[in-house]
């Protein structure tokens, strides 16, 4: 796979990680029917931390981050996001979803709304922001992802890379404190991957707490505080990117890395 090269030596001193806990997962388990997808997951994410999750297909990466904003229900263990525990209480779920933004592999923009309407929909209806303000915020973030001129087009009229940047902006408009990314670049043509990753790097530099499922190892090296490797529904290894890539411990990790970086 083509890999845009990022300078691994950029100055990351201004990226701060606080001691506050953003997400705390304890002994979490999930089944699909009889299939045990997530097994005894324990994970603590500090505020401002940037975590990359990698692992073979079917290892449960997507399921894990979808549990964090309750797109999937977990059956055992505890997930606490931003101090709120995820239970069946609808109010808690609403609160958490407001604080957690999510970006999908297939963008999932609303095709019947313009870009601007996509961006202002949730602020207006969920956060009850006045429309003018919502539009201002939306334009702000559109500028940030470098496509303010597309505001009045429809998603279908944009390229994949542009759509994914809009999707990121849409999440940001809700001013989330945590962002989840589920393979945001894997449905994109190579030329477009870089523009999306650039946007994500910028976000990281601003200190957003990020959990990102991705196979873009250049990105991982550039911005992650920590790389988590999952297999068979378990966290098999985690480490800082430098050590993770240069000195993987587990056999599974080594094998996976050799495949991914292989050619």
């Amino acid at each position, binding site marked *: 796979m083509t890999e845009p090269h990022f300078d691994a030596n950029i100055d990351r001193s201004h990226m701060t990680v606080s001691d506050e806990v953003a997400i705390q997962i304890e002994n979490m388990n999930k089944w699909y029917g009889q299939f*045990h997808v997530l*097994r005894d997951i*324990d*994970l603590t994410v500090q505020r401002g931390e940037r975590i990359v999750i990698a692992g073979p297909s079917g290892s449960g990466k997507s399921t894990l981050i979808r549990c964090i904003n309750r797109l999937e229900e977990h059956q055992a263990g505890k997930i606490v996001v931003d101090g709120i525990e995820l239970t069946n209480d609808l109010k808690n779920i609403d609160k958490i979803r407001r604080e957690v933004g999510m970006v999908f592999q297939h963008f999932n923009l609303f095709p019947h709304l313009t870009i601007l309407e996509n961006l202002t929909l949730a602020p207006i209806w969920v956060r009850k922001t006045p429309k003018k303000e919502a539009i201002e915020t939306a334009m702000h973030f559109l500028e940030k992802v470098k496509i303010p001129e597309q505001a009045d087009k429809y998603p279908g009229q944009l390229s994949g890379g542009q759509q994914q940047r809009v999707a990121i902006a849409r999440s940001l408009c809700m001013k989330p404190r945590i962002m989840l990314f589920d393979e945001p670049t894997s449905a994109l043509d190579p030329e477009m991957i870089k523009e999306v990753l650039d946007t994500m790097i910028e976000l990281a530099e601003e200190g957003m707490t990020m959990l990102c499922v991705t196979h873009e190892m250049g990105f991982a090296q550039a911005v992650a505080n920590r790389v988590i490797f999952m297999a068979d*529904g*378990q*966290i098999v*290894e*985690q*480490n800082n990117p430098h050590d993770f890539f240069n000195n993987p411990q587990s056999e599974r990790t080594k094998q996976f890395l050799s495949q991914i970086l292989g050619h």
Partner: protein
Amino acid sequence: MSDTHAQSVAYVRDTMLDPKPAPASQSGAIQWLRENLFSGWLNTLLTILGILAIYGFFSHFYAWFLHGVWNANSLAECRQIITTEYGDGATGACWGVIRDRWHQFIFGFYPPELYWRPILTFLLLFAAVGPVLFQWVPRKLIWFTPIYPFLAVWLLWGGSIWGPVLVALGFVLAFVVFNYVARFGTIGGFAAGAIVAILFWLFGVSPLAGVLHAIIPLGIEPVESAKFGGFLLAITLGAGGIAMSLPLGVILALGRQSDMFLIRTFSVIFIEFIRGVPLITLLFVASLLLNYFLPPGTNFDIILRVMILVTMFAAAYIAEVIRGGLAALPRGQYEAADALGLDYWKAQRLIILPQALKISIPGIVSTFIGMFKDTTLVAFVGLFDPLKGIPDFIRADFAWKGIYWEPFIFVGAIFFILNFAMSRYSMYLENRLKRDHR
């Protein structure tokens, strides 16, 4: 366990966990019931309503079905039997009418000693469409498909074999002429082939058939169309209409796709006109007007006239189905054919149509189901369709006067079984095509 401190997070799992069974509340019959039937007050309410509906239905009709009588030769006899067996006021189905008249529901007035002919024709139908519809039928059998229509006509209507043979010969003749002339131009080939065939059919077939029949009298007992009725009529009209409408539909679809204005316009006018009026009006055209349009003195029986209009009707719908198939083909196929130097007709014949028709098969099957249902409307031009014509006729008999539900149920069930099977099959085909398509 992971250290909460972000800077010293390194962690390696030494033993992998095995999957554990899901907690009890997540499995089993109770879980299934809870999830599928009682997962909320609305759901529970719906379940109860559903059960009530089923109960209402069965409690109403259970006795009627249970008291069904097969061995009776008239409605009065039926009622008699039911009353003696189940007491006064008991109701019951009188299936005796089906036992007594099933052959008319199926065959109309076709001579009973010749039932083997429609049955054979029906069975052979599967052999004919098999290579097209079913993957497990050897492709080689496809030679039978073009022969089948002529064989079917001969088997159903009987008479001298030479008529159908000579008509088929007309096609062969057209093909030979086409092949010869097409060297100088495909369109010319078409024209020459068509002219030769039409001349042959108009002036060659009947005298030749007479002569041949005099020399070698091969024939079976003729059966006139007036004797056709019931499902035999419905299937003949439906299948015949679809089969004859296919070539016309292909031409119309190509015409509608053409970039020549006049040809496109003619095709669109035809298709939209036919699709814009109810079938019943077309049947009236068949029964009341067609004779006006044909040269004075031409006169053929109503089944044939209905068949012509039904064919036109089906052709308009088939054309739209095939147009969908043509549109689904990537442009690259046309371009590749062009780049290889194939001309329009060769490209259509060798590259485009085989693929487009294959994609269209589910749509054609659906059209056939619709047609098959619609054939019941021929009752309104005095033909004996299985739904109204035949039951009305049976009710005209003193013995069965006043019997309604049993014929409805019997005919409805046959329609349902045939159509349901076909619609399932076309869904299966659709899925298979989706998978096959890269």
